[in-house]
């Protein structure tokens, strides 16, 4: 556990994978951030999106040289289980800190309240990065990162901006 990525869940696979892909490519960053451990958050509304995302994330990280990425999935019974969402982020960050890993929180996917909770956890528990993947146009919503023109997307790190 050197680099940890903590994300939430979304019905859109690309919203979960593309920020990781951009971080691996170092898009907009001073240096690349290639996680070897990734946490997602499942809830009953996501259907197959999360299992597809895990397969794709594994492929992505392997292509960036992570031999056997660890992909953990937290679960909540309902998407408005706010405490459950907060615990997901808190526990994952605490575990990363215990392992002296660099930790990034991704506020891109999921409902707005998930992003808010993720952002708060990132600021409160002093993570290394709080990422947001910005897409210039909704035309690219269903595209995977390598197929999106590089100038149409940018990864922001709120720990540097704010």
């Amino acid at each position, binding site marked *: 556990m050197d680099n940890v990525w903590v994300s939430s869940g979304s019905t859109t*696979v*690309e919203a979960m*994978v593309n920020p990781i*892909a951009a971080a691996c*490519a170092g898009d907009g960053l001073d240096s690349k951030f290639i996680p070897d451990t990734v946490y997602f958050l499942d809830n009953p509304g996501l259907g197959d999106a999360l299992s*597809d995302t895990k*397969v*794709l994330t594994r*492929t*992505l990280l392997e*292509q*960036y040289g992570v031999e056997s990425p660890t992909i953990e999935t937290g679960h909540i019974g309902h998407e408005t289980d706010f405490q459950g969402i907060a615990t997901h982020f808190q526990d994952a960050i605490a575990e990363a800190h215990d392992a002296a890993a660099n930790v990034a929180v991704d506020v891109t996917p999921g409902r707005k309240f998930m992003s808010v909770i993720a952002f708060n956890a990132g600021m409160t528990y002093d993570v290394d990065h709080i990422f947001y993947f910005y897409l*210039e*146009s909704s035309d690219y919503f269903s595209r*995977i*990162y*390598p*197929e*999106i*023109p*590089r*100038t*149409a997307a940018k990864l922001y790190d709120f720990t540097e901006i704010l």
Partner: protein
Amino acid sequence: MELAHEDLMLLLNGLYELGEESFSVVHPAEEIGELLRIDLGDATDSTVSMTTGAVTYEDALDEIEREHGPTVRKELPNEAAYVKAVTASGIFDIQNREELDKFITRYGYQDLQEGHPPRYAGFDTNLLPWRMHDVLGIDPVLHTKPGGRAPVNGYALLEGVDSELSISYRYGTNAMPASALADAFGPEYERLAGQPTEDNRETRLGLREYRRLRETRPHDIISTGTGDTNIIDGCAEYYADKPTGEILFSNDYGFVDEARERKVPAVHVDFSIDFPRRLTGTWGQIATLLYQLAVLFGVLVLPRATLYGVWDGKSERNWKNEEIDIDTRSEKLAAILERDQPIVQAHALRQ
């Protein structure tokens, strides 16, 4: 490495990642050299500078003919095909846009829910290679307006056109030896052994478009002979007793006149003679431009990579998938493409 037309964004992103934000697209023949220059900026508004315009390109062809003879010249696209290929990418418009828009508005946009009969578009052989479904903005999948009205509802696929395009299967019978082409244009042309000559590559693009429309769009296949008269007769007869209507597009005034005499609505598509020096387009259009030009010219030289639109061993599957072969001259670019292709493939698998 083989990359499909739709995946050429990987190449553009790879070049961009390596700092090649502005690069030349060069033909290996020294008489031609730089065709154009691409500046990758805004994803929807990047610049393409046409360093070699169609008139300058024609001069280069004349020089090639003086030095190497007329057969060698015929291995390269003529200046009109060069303009058409650039038009096909969508970065440069057809000349009579206004007339075409009026024609399409008059005959298209049928309100099917109100009981209007559907309208199908038919293309003459000389338009099929140039992605008219998209350039004209008529494709029902790509260009249906919110509310449901499509410019046309499908395509009339004419068997006579299919036969005329199928001449491109005469591989190797009229192609020059690749070694002779390499002597004239550059060593890259060694790889074109056994591949179709220029005009056959052009018709091969048309055949692919015909089949793509047949595989993916609503259509009627219309039994016709070859030649304008037979094609138009076939169309007129097929639709005479059917509620569906058709409109025909051609780059040949004779074809248009003959169709109108048979009371089939038809319109001429005018291509410009040359293009302005500076054009703008999306990255997607730039990818299409590279694909069209790579097939047409056979070889394009970019920084860090040489693109082969045709190469020894190009298979039916390669044509079907609209693939070009990318010879990466840079290990870094090769590594990026090899890294990204499996990600894109894994993503495509889930869709």
